[in-house]
């Protein structure tokens, strides 16, 4: 579904990504793990076009999208949930959700929003409230729900567990897993919380200083004690 090859991204002389390659297949969750500064967020920002790569290629369903503008990505089938600040705080919950399906030509976006409220009842109760009144968990539900309204083929998730209670993390991860199994969505998940991420992922990729140092089945990675100690901190 999504193929990344030899991606290099640099901020001035500092290389955030140093020749990263990976494949994110449909119907699977690919978790990218690593310490702070390993290049995880840079990877997602480069893939979605917020940051321009120096070299390398990103392909979506075989099509080269490396130079496509950010605004086009969602139309091409890629949704990116950025780290932490994904809600537009001044807009209401419902307005945030409407933005998710805005570019779609079909008219069932309204029905889809109702469906999102069924999925996340807390959002339904607060639909007319400004998004800044939501709790951290509700905000994360909102941004995930909003990304799904675009009916993406590939979902990029940046640290969805950040600052959330374990119960909320489990709920969101469970939902994503279920969606991937039902719809064949491809998920590229970036997490510092390696343990939870590996528990729902199919494949794990470990980044360190902008390079891929390990790629393996999630269960194998979780069992590799040496790797866990060296890079994942659990």
């Amino acid at each position, binding site marked *: 579904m999504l193929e990344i090859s030899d991606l290099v991204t640099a901020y001035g002389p500092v290389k955030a990504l140093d020749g990263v390659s990976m494949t994110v297949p449909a119907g699977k969750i690919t978790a990218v793990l690593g310490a702070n500064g390993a290049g995880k967020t840079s990877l997602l920002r480069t893939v979605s076009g*917020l940051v321009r790569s120096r070299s390398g290629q990103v392909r979506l369903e075989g099509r080269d999208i490396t130079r496509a503008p950010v605004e086009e990505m*969602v*139309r091409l089938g890629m949704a990116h949930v950025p780290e932490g600040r994904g809600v*537009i705080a001044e*807009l209401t919950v419902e307005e945030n959700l409407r933005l998710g399906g*805005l*570019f779609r030509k079909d008219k069932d976006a309204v029905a889809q929003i109702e469906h999102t409220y069924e999925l996340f009842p807390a959002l339904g109760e607060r639909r007319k409230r400004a998004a800044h009144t939501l709790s951290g968990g509700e905000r994360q539900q909102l941004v995930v729900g909003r990304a799904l309204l*675009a009916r993406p083929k590939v979902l990029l998730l940046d640290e969805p567990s950040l600052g959330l209670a374990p119960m909320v993390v489990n709920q969101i991860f469970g939902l994503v897993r279920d969606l991937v199994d039902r719809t064949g969505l491809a998920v590229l998940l970036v997490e510092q919380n390696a343990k939870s991420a590996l528990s729902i992922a199919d494949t794990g990729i470990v980044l360190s200083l902008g390079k891929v140092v390990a790629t393996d089945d999630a269960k194998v990675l979780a069992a590799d004690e040496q790797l866990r100690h060296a890079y994942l901190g659990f």
Partner: protein
Amino acid sequence: MEKFLNITLSGLTVGFIYAAFALCLVLIFRATRLINFGQGAQAMFTTYIALELINRGASYWIGLLAALVSGFVIGGLVERFVVRPVETGPEINAVIVTLGVFIFFVALAAVVFGNTFESFPSAFSLTGLQVGGLDLALTRNELYNIAAVLIALVLLTLLFQFTSLGLRMRAAAFGQEVARLLGVRVGQMLTLGWALAGLFGSLAGILIAGGTLVSPNYMDGVVVFGFVAAVLGGLDSFIGAVVGGLVLGLTNSYVSGYAGQELITLGALAILIVVLLLKPGGLFASSVARRV
């Protein structure tokens, strides 16, 4: 009593015009976090375009339409070709560039239309209305001014609150990066925001000019008071701009009526200081701190 009533009425009339001008500053500040110091000069230039057409035999309404359309176009062009190229640099660059826009249009107007005073026709009669034997300091033309600003305000609110275009414009203003990730063409929204501001500025310019004299500098005072009104209202709220405009219009009118005309600017300064001391963000600041 009659004096108080009339001072209040003229304060409200002026206040609505400040409000219209404050609105266009707010439109731009919300979208780009900038004050466009060229706004008044752009409006002045489009008023001259209207005057030129009227002097050649067109009706007031054709002139108004031409001013609004040219204000819209000029606003969009200024954003796209003057402000956009410097937007990535330090904020002060863009501010200086808008000062350049101000100088450019004032100079261009002087060259093209002449650096003299010319009278601008009013849409309606300029004689005061009489209600129940009371002579009011309110003319048909001033009623038209108020109505025009209110209609424009309602249309603007409808656009922003109830259309998908308005939603996209607000998203682009409040969360640029997120909006782009959701497929909103942020650049187009910014251009449109500046264009709408240009349109509003031109409306304010024409209303102020009605029945008085215009010169390349006739908007300068309005720019100052419109800016104060916008700051009073919190700079990013439409309601705030209107309330700020009315508060300032009334203050100016009371000060001028009871204390003396030479104290108007002092009164404006006093109300600005008092409001900012009590509510540093302005009366209606709508932006909230973002938690990460």
